[in-house]
């Protein structure tokens, strides 16, 4: 399996994208809608014109048309051929390349087994469920033994339980096959679970490339952190060093201890899931602990978002459903708010704030 390299890729939306994807790696291309994620996948597949160079294993493939690049591409809408049954869909790439019929048959059988869809082989796509279609589309993409696999939001059309299940399966399959994969998504949780590395793309520009924990906990700039968790961003009124790797900043009446990064902290960021809420006064030192009032409670699919007012600042916290159920949190209630010191990010400049 080759490594992939994008060199100075420019297109209508993409601005000078440089990216290396290692052999056998699963790289998640993460970004909001319209960031250019699909465009990059299309560029690698050769489905769109571009400037710059795409290299597979160091060799440029820019001159190769899409049908010679040997890229397996799973489209967002899966795009199964409606006029072909499951087996013929999977066989499409093999027949297009004129593989001998007996080899084709054997390969189809193997893929049907691998994706656990043997019972579907003579069905037409209109009779398949979303999850089944997904498996068929993946089998079809894998059939011609592509050098690279591109997955464009492959789970976005499925319900949550199916998504979770298929995500794990997809990851295992990718590791087993050792196929270099680019996985496009706007879903943070999906990115975190799937990725070897994450590349954050915004407005056609790569903002940060790194391991999931790097990107999630140490976003390189505010554009990344804005997207990653819509973190609470607080402007600092003052800051002073306390020594021993920490400093104190004042934000709207709150005195917050943060990691020391220099003496010019302009604002700090903290993710909603790094804010703790307690009904009773917690034991231990009162570092980064404030009295606050709940202003709103809004359950989402994954967690409960709690709006808080502490000092003059509005904060958003995110707590898991099970924690929420153990507490009695309603709007207007007074609680203790704890900010996790090591999860607070400090920014010195504001120039890249959108």
């Amino acid at each position, binding site marked *: 399996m080759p490594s992939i390299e994008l060199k100075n890729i420019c297109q209508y939306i993409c601005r000078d994208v440089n990216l290396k994807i290692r052999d056998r790696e699963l790289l998640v291309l993460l970004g909001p809608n319209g960031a250019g994620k699909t465009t990059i996948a299309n560029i690698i597949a050769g489905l769109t014109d571009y400037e710059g160079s795409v290299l597979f294993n160091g060799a440029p493939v820019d001159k190769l048309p899409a*049908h010679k690049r040997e890229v397996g591409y799973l489209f967002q809408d899966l795009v199964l051929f409606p006029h072909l049954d499951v087996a013929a869909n999977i066989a499409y790439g093999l027949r*297009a390349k004129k593989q001998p019929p007996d080899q084709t048959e054997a390969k189809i059988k193997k893929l049907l087994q691998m994706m656990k869809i043997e019972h579907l082989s003579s069905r*037409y796509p*209109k009779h398949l469920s979303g999850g089944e279609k997904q498996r068929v589309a993946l089998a079809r993409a894998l059939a*011609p033994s592509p050098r690279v696999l591109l997955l464009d939001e492959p789970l976005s059309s499925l319900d949550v339980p199916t998504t979770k299940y298929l995500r794990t399966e997809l990851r295992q399959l990718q590791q087993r096959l050792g196929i270099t994969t680019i996985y496009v998504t706007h879903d943070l949780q999906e990115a975190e679970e799937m990725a070897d590395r994450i590349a954050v793309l915004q407005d056609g520009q790569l903002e940060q490339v790194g391991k999931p924990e790097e990107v999630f906990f140490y976003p390189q700039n505010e554009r990344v952190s804005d997207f990653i968790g819509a973190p609470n961003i607080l402007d600092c009124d003052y800051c002073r060093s306390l020594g021993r790797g920490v400093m104190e900043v004042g934000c709207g009446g709150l005195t917050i201890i943060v990691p020391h990064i220099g003496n010019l902290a302009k604002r700090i960021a903290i993710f909603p899931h790094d804010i703790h809420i307690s009904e009773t006064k917690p034991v231990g030192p009162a570092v980064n602990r404030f009295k606050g009032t709940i202003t709103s409670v809004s359950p989402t699919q994954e967690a409960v978002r709690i709006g808080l007012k502490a000092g003059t600042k509005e904060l958003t916290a995110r707590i898991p459903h099970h924690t929420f159920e153990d507490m009695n949190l309603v709007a207007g209630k007074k609680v203790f708010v704890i900010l996790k010191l090591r999860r607070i990010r400090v920014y010195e400049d504001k120039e890249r704030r959108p």
Partner: protein
Amino acid sequence: MLKKLRPGWGLLPVAVFLALWELVARFNLVPGELSFPPFSVVVIEFYHLAANGVLGDNFLASLTRVLIGFVTGSLAGIAVGIAMGWRENFNKALHPIISLFYPIPALGWLPLLMLWIGINELLPIAIIFICSFFPVLYNTVTGIRNVDKDYIRVARTLGASDFKILTTVAIPLALPNIFTGLRLEAGMAWRVIIAAEMVAIPTGIGALMMRAESLIRIDIIIVCLIVLAVMCLAFERFFQYMEARVTTRWR
């Protein structure tokens, strides 16, 4: 509700209609001096015409013209339509011309073709060719161009060449549209051939009708109209059936 009835029940309205027809004609309930033969007389005349070969000869003449004109016209329409639908250059070059010719009714060509071709067997075939060519072409172009581009892109990433994509993806997915064109024109070909034969050709069902008119044989005219109606219906139904056979599995 209707679907629960047994198939034979669908013929009930037809039977009622024929009975009414028979009664109205027998009891002379038609106003004025109109000559109106009862259904039974028409049936007997049909038998006479069939027995002495007049109906068969004229029917065969019309059928042959329709088949030759329709098959060649449709094939040409499909071929040009595929080229136009698949290749933007062809479409750009031919679309303006086709758009100008398409609205001309097939019979509008008759005077011109009578002068160019003369009154011979080629004339009705040419008319039917034109009558089939443009609509089938139009539906084919639409069908091919409407194929979702993602199907083409996915086929490309799977390693299929342009020609392969055309034959294995674009044409099969355009089939429903192509069949719609064929079905509509199969009936239309019969309507046009009758009209052409009435005006310009001395043989065929249309010509038989004109001769019957000059002899004031209303029963023969009605026989011809029934043959026409049955043939239009049969041709359309044939293509409906074919379309269903080809596409119901996946549509």
